[in-house]
């Protein structure tokens, strides 16, 4: 399994960049970004992580991806 530290950092960066548009849009945007740009093993790794370092928007996005 890939090291999740860089993935958590990237997810947080994406979430922070989209945060100005409001929480709902930021969560949707983060979900879409990960779907559009991440390799399957990256998605699998962040879904399997404990998600401890994720900011609230990124955590919500990963939660939505898991669902």
């Amino acid at each position, binding site marked *: 399994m*890939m*090291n999740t530290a860089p993935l958590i950092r990237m997810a947080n960066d994406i979430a922070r960049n989209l945060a100005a548009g409001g929480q709902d849009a930021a969560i949707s945007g983060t979900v879409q970004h990960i779907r559009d740009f991440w390799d399957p093993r990256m998605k699998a790794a962040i879904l399997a992580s404990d998600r401890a370092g994720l900011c609230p928007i990124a955590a919500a996005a990963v939660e939505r991806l898991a669902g």
Partner: protein
Amino acid sequence: MGYEPQADFGTPRIDAAAEVSLTIDGRAITVPEGTSVMRAAALAGGNIPKLCATDSVEAFGSCRMCLVEVEGMRGTPASCTTPVAPGMVVATQTPRLEKLRRGVMELYISDHPLDCLTCSANNDCELQDAAAQVGLRDVRYGYAGANHLAEVKDTSNPYFSFDAAKCIVCSRCVRACDEVQGTLALTISGRGFGSQVSAGQAGDDFLSSDCVSCGACVQACPTDALNEKAVAEIGKPERSVITTCAYCGVGCTFRAEMRGEQLVRMVPWKDGKANRGHSCVKGRFAWGYAQHKDRIRSPMIRESIDQPWREVGWDEALAFTASRLTAIKAKHGPRALGGITSSRCTNEEVFLVQKLIRSGFGSNNVDTCARVCHSPTGYGLKTTFGTSAGTQDFDSVEAADVILVIGANPTDAHPVFASRMKKRIRGKDGQPGAKLIVIDPRRIDLVRSPHIAAAHHLPLQPGTNVAVLTAMAHVIVTEGLADEAFIRERCDWDEYQDWARFVADPRHSPEVLEAVSRVPAAELRAAARLYATGGSGFGAAQGRKPNAAIYYGLGVTEHSQGSSTVMAIANLAMATGNIGRPGVGVNPLRGQNNVQGSCDMGSFPHELSGYRHISGGATRALFEAEWGTALDSEPGLRIPNMFDAALDGSFRALYVQGEDILQSDPDTKHVSAGLAAMELVIVHDLFLNETANYAHVFLPGSTFLEKTGTFTNAERRIQMVRRVMQPANGAGDGIGKEGLEDWQVTQALANALGLGWNYANTAQIMD
């Protein structure tokens, strides 16, 4: 084609709508108003003798060789400084003119070495041509008088020499340095007989002066006074081929001037639409790597990276590579394989590499350095404008009234375009130039250099690009400087209002954001007003809206907020109506020669050619039908993630074309660890670079001089690259015996994997 110097019309082209008809030596001709008689004569097929005139610089009128007679006009005016007039009747060849010219030439030759046969400019010398043209047979004054024949030659510059003994002090070099390059490194020192070309201050030579070795002076020199050392060493070229430089995103077109298989010199092509006849030191002189002794010319393989390399023929190298790729794919799946395309290679080569990875390796693990440097441009401009490229060509800068440079240092990184920009900033014929705004933490040359001074320099803190641009937008919106008519006609009004509300929020004012950016609020407000209005002096006198253009580079894109900054730039341009005509727009200055093209060709792990997302079923179906294989619907790994995956064991083989990732990518330890963890690293390059320390296969590449194809420059202009010499990588008795261009190597590897490609040339790839 055989060797012919490029035609010289004597004075620059005039772009005027009105035309003038006149008669020259009995021939009727119609030319744009303002054209010189000299240029009109040349366009009519004539050839008025000249020495101080050349069409890269403005007319000077000093040599008195180009005199003509004009009916109804007294005397013998210089044709270079005399504009055409309706009904003018000109004679360029009369007994009176012949006598005058011969007398002038006699004076020139009386103080010039008579060593034509051993001169490196022999048969490529305008002084020699002009002497023949005027029929000079002897010099009545003799050669014993005071002269300059014992002047010491300046050989300090590594690329060219200056021989004052052969200089006729025509000032073409000085004017080229002033007008074309804009460095103003040269001058004429002394007076009268003591006049001579000088580089820099007293005591300077060319190397210690401000000269940047762009070669404009050498190109302008009509004699051997300034000449390339390579010409002296190799001899006069025999033929020339037009091709495109492989250094930066400007995409200068050159004449590669050859003698046999040997490159003698690269001379900027005056018809090149990106460079308009100019060059920088790299394109002009730094091509020695093509024939450097350290180039690797044979394929090499090794079982593991602790073993020495073993030179082999192409057949063995390709078979070794294919068998290893096939074994890794069989054991670990297609997503364990990937590759990196090169923004230094041609569009056709990039296309084939990404095709090989997607259709041959079976994954979308393809990436490029161009994603690192300019994917924010692709994403930001596609989001705002609908297309992943800038909005202007380079000529557009000539119509700009305000130039905003952010996160770019054109004089260092894009010198040929910078020269054009500086020319516009300096102004011409007494007309004011463009006003300049520089947003950069550094005090770059453009902030203040000879005849250039930025109206505003905003030395922001690194990482605050978005804050500064948002503050500028705040000023434009809150002070009523937005172009509402343009926005209503050309943009989405509702979205504009959302944006305007956001930027107008007091927390985005220059005064509040000064704490973050450390840019003085008053200076930022003044810069925003200048960008939006053209300044207080702009108005009814011009009878038009001011043109404001934004140029940006890696100081914008190579940040985590790069895409947001690009979109902020695009929003500024749209809000002020600075889109859609010459002199305005959003202009990304691309780094390498084919950054734009490598992105266009589909080098990103989530996109096929033309920026079409890999998840689109219809898009994939198009490519699957064309390529005859199924494609992975999931995005692949980007370069840093390839190393992450290599360390976890899920990524095991990498094909790297034309990029030294160990030196150029961030986090070298991570890169080296990732490379060391792979089972197969294939490096396809010119030299045994740092990445090759971790490679199992080295495939020798070909330089831009050895290949045919296209590069796409920062303007998105697609330009031809033409092969001027044989690839130096011939090896073995089979395929590749005569050398292979890079696209041929990729095709050979694809065929070793059983893909059955049969491109006969690069045109078939582009088609």
